[in-house]
């Protein structure tokens, strides 16, 4: 198990595959590398197909009687619905350019984690079951039949892909293995083969409003606790509103930040920032989740969960929506939301009430990213900042996969960080911006039972952090993603002790000079700010 192997042992990785072909090597399911199956009742909650009890290590996964037709029918249907899927099944030339781009391959050396092979696992079924050549020539044409063994293999490796799209950046045809994984997972979900770490949040989000299942009262109370903390450390009392009709802006963010350390500090940051600029906004308990684990089960489920954002904006009568820091949430909002649940013609084109800036790039979706919003505020000198409060931090920035490769949000967070921190260092160029490495826990894989997978998958990211840690003494890893905030601390603890994980808005808030504030001797975490302890006695 992961906990016993030391970083030294774990980084002994062999990138050379065995000579025996992958089709002749049956899947070898290893503990620490997978998540537990979805509980049937969590599948039933949202009416998804084939809930049943099964166990990963059992020989028999109790597939439904018509499993084969269901899977193949599902595949046929998706080939007709997604040009991406059809083309990606047909045109890979196996050039190998994507092979060493995947963090899971780099961290495990498992040859089936090369994006090309991950895709071939399904492509071979496509050739064997759907193409004439494959049906007649079989192996010779690279085809194979769908068997329960193959289902297991697909399940194992589609849940070892974080849909990060790094492979697609390098593919000469733009083949996106994430797209294949998304569809592959949809197919597995038709058979009731999901993981609980995804399914339970989906069920919670659907009925209760957020992944963590925080009921309205608890959600509000949690935020109130944070308001108390702000009062203690900053010396001001903030009174945000919830579900308030007529607010100008709806603020929506992942629920992870309401609940767990270190995400809560980012949430405190939001509260302070909005107070500082006097924003007319509201929180919502109904739309208390913008992260979308539905996206990791099926596009339909993604749409069902995403529905609440526009529905709530409409009900409350706001002008536009501001979205918090999150990775895959922004992929869904940027690339899917308007198509899923638009048009948002009941909203107005977003304009910053503070600076008057029109957010041209969000004029149809009407949802603005918090770092776009903050960068604009800073640019117009609307924030009073004391950068030096962050002087003890040596900061680097982790680009989350989705804002980078499915949106292109690269400069905004950097601009914000550099405006509030004096010491900023970039990681090596092949590991940042559009080439960024995944945290290793995205796409619903941030459970604890698969810790070895996460630590291995996160190794390339950690490796780059280690580089700047050793070279520049970097001690803070900033990010704009709630999953990162949940996942990266464990990764840092293991690979690069001494580096803490912080949200960008947390860094902003620490530098904000709030009106009526007390002596700012502590940061939002309640830690003494080095060099400020004296001032505390004034």
């Amino acid at each position: 198990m992961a906990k016993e192997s030391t970083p030294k042992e774990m980084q002994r990785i062999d990138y050379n595959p065995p000579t025996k072909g992958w089709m002749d090597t049956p899947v070898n399911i290893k503990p620490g590398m997978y998540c537990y199956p979805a509980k049937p009742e969590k599948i039933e909650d949202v009416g998804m197909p084939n809930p049943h009890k099964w166990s990963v290590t059992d020989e028999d996964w109790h597939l439904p009687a018509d499993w084969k037709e269901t899977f193949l029918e599902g595949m046929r249907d998706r080939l007709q619905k997604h040009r991406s899927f059809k083309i990606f099944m047909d045109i890979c030339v196996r050039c190998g350019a994507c092979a060493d781009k995947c963090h899971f391959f780099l961290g495990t050396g498992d040859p089936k984690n090369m994006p090309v092979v991950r895709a071939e696992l399904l492509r071979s079924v496509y050739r064997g079951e759907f193409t004439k050549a494959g049906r007649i020539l079989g192996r010779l044409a690279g085809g194979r039949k769908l068997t329960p063994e193959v289902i297991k293999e697909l399940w194992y490796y589609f849940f070892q892909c974080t849909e990060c799209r790094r492979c697609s950046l390098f593919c000469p045809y733009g083949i996106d293995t994430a797209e294949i994984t998304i569809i592959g997972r949809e197919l597995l979900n038709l058979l009731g083969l999901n993981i609980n770490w995804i399914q339970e949040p989906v069920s919670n989000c659907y009925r209760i409003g957020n992944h963590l299942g925080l009921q309205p009262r608890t959600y509000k109370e949690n935020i109130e606790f944070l308001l108390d903390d702000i009062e203690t450390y900053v010396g001001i009392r903030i009174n945000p509103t919830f579900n308030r009709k007529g607010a100008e802006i709806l603020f929506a963010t992942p629920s992870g930040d309401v609940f767990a350390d270190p995400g809560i500090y980012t949430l405190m940051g939001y509260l302070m920032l909005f107070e500082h600029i006097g924003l007319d906004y509201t929180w919502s308990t109904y739309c208390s989740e913008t992260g979308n684990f539905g996206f990791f089960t099926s596009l339909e489920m993604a749409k069902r969960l995403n529905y609440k954002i526009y529905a709530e904006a409409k009900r409350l009568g706001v002008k536009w929506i501001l979205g918090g820091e999150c990775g895959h949430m922004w992929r869904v909002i940027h690339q899917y939301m308007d198509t899923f649940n638009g048009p948002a013609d009941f909203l107005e084109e977003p304009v910053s009430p503070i600076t008057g800036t029109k957010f041209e790039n969000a004029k149809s979706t009407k949802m603005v990213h918090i770092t776009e919003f903050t960068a604009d505020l800073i640019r117009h000198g609307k924030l009073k900042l004391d950068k030096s409060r962050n002087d003890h931090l040596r900061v680097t920035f982790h680009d989350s996969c989705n804002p980078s490769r499915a949106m292109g949000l690269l400069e905004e967070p950097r601009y914000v960080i550099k405006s509030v921190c004096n010491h900023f260092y970039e990681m090596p160029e092949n590991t940042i911006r559009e080439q960024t490495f995944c945290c290793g826990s995205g796409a619903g894989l941030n459970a604890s039972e698969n810790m070895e997978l996460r630590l291995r998958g996160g190794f390339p990211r950690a490796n780059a952090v280690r580089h700047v840690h050793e070279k520049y003494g970097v001690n803070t890893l900033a990010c704009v993603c709630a999953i990162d905030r949940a996942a990266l601390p464990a990764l840092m603890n293991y690979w690069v002790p001494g580096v803490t994980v912080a949200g960008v808005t947390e860094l902003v808030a620490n530098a904000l000079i709030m009106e009526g504030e007390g002596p700012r001797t502590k940061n939002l975490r309640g830690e003494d700010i080095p060099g400020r302890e004296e001032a505390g006695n004034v």
Partner: protein
Amino acid sequence: MGITVSLGAVLAIVFVALIGGSTPGLQYVFGVFLPYVAFAVFLVGFAYRVINWGRSPVPFRIPTTAGQEYSLPWIKQAKIDNPSTLWGVLIRMALEILVFRSLFRNTKAELRSGHIVFGPAKWLWLGALAFHWSFLIIAIRHVRLFVEPIPAVVQALDTVDGMLQIGAPALYITDLLLVASVTFLFVRRVVIPRMRYISLPADYFPLLLIFAIATTGILMRYFIRVDIVGVKTILVGLSTFHPTIPEGIGAIFFVHITLVAVLMAYFPFSKLMHMGGVFLSPTRNLINNSRMKRHVNPWNYPVKVHTYEAYENEFREQMKEAGIPVERE
């Protein structure tokens, strides 16, 4: 296994064509019938595949963004790698198709004493570029054998390509490049363990086939000379739909043309269709403006949702207690 099978297949084609080409009665089959059928299969098959892809819609706007998005006016956008306009996409696609932009990005990851280091990896890009461009130029050069008079462009290309002027007839640069690059592409599949692991017969076969085409072509031009006038008669005959087979054409010609015919007929059924697919790839040919402009999914359908009403009905009491406004008291 893949290599043996593919090599066997190519040798078999060569052998059959050699027999056919040396048998006067069969020359018509190999010189006329087969090329026509193959060409028809190529055209129809290619069109069918592309139309078939086109029949599947693009429900979501999913470009892979490879640079800064269009954002605030003072933030510099990567207009090509993350295009927000049609022009940007056109340039992105042109770079992709003409100079293999994404492949140019390639890196090589290595583990050195516990650290992953990234080095540049341009060989594949260079090899692929040399391969595709020389193939294209050679194909265009061949036009001079099919038409009379020879178009000036083709003549010019021929002259430039033959610039090296080594020996007589002049040595073509593209001939050298094609053989070198196809050999490189094949050898890397065989010697790099990771490449051998992912390679299928369908990967070796086209490379060997093209290698055989290049070799027979070169043999014919420099070593086993064929009656070039006769060859031209056949090819012009083919292109004007007045096929004839003059006497005394060397069998090697029939081997060459048969290999080409097999390549054409094989094309639409194989990964070689990446030639058409690259144009349609949704991660490359879409504008990244999905927050600016609504993209419609043609098969969008209503889904079951959990409405606010249902939510409030479940939590009304506690919402009231917690001071959260409700719709119905």
